């Protein structure tokens, strides 16, 4: 809930819910998720192709297709239109009222976590974020 300044003239409605914007944090997470998903889809396709047992092949194929579907789903959040409309709405609301922005500084960086999990899994040492980026 955002406090309304008594000196303000306009009675701009306070936002009841977070507008549909892509925050600076969101973009970092979405980038990482897209990278993981693309790699997972490719790996599944590769393994499915190598599989001897048809039920194994089918199962892995299904998983891979799911990852690709998820990629498209998350990518759609980066399409400008909806984000832009919500940003305008948000800007208008924040101009009228004083807002306190909550900062979450104690969160672990997503890519670091992904790195740690990947290195645990595969035994590789990856020190930079860019190594998970698709080509």
């Amino acid at each position, binding site marked *: 809930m955002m406090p309304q300044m008594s000196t303000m003239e306009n009675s701009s409605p306070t936002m009841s819910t977070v507008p*549909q914007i892509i925050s600076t944090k*969101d973009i970092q997470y979405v980038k990482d998720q897209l990278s993981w998903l693309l790699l997972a889809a490719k790996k599944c396709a590769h393994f499915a192709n190598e599989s001897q*047992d048809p039920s194994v092949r089918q199962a892995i194929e*299904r998983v891979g297709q*799911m990852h690709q579907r998820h990629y498209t789903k998350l990518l759609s*959040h980066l399409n400008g239109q909806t984000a832009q409309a919500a940003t305008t709405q948000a800007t208008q609301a924040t101009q009228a009222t004083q807002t306190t922005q909550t900062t*979450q500084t104690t969160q672990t960086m997503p890519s670091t976590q992904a790195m740690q*999990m990947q290195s645990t899994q595969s035994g590789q040492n990856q020190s930079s974020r860019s190594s998970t980026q698709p080509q």
Partner: protein
Amino acid sequence: MPATKQKIANPESASGTMQKGPELNDRDRLNDILATEKYLTDSFNVAVREASHDQLFQDVLQVLQETHQAGRDVYNLMFQKGWYTLEAEPQTEIDQVQQQFQAYSSQFPYPSTLQ
């Protein structure tokens, strides 16, 4: 005296064991995909917590749930093929834990609602 633990598993399917050499076999591939789903659900779980707005939250949550299910399907397939063994906990041990935690319910802060 501890009871002998019962092993729960299907007979091992051929395609996983056919090649027990340095090359990846079907069992290895499923194992790796399962591990992938596990690490993905961990990562998506963090991402879903950090989503700024509801639409993104809902979408990432759905991705998380479907990824969980995918891992589950792989796990079930591995069990079906005899590539996953479980051990059943003896009933005596289960009973002991049940009694212990049944007693702890005396610490409930809220009144119990009986159906």
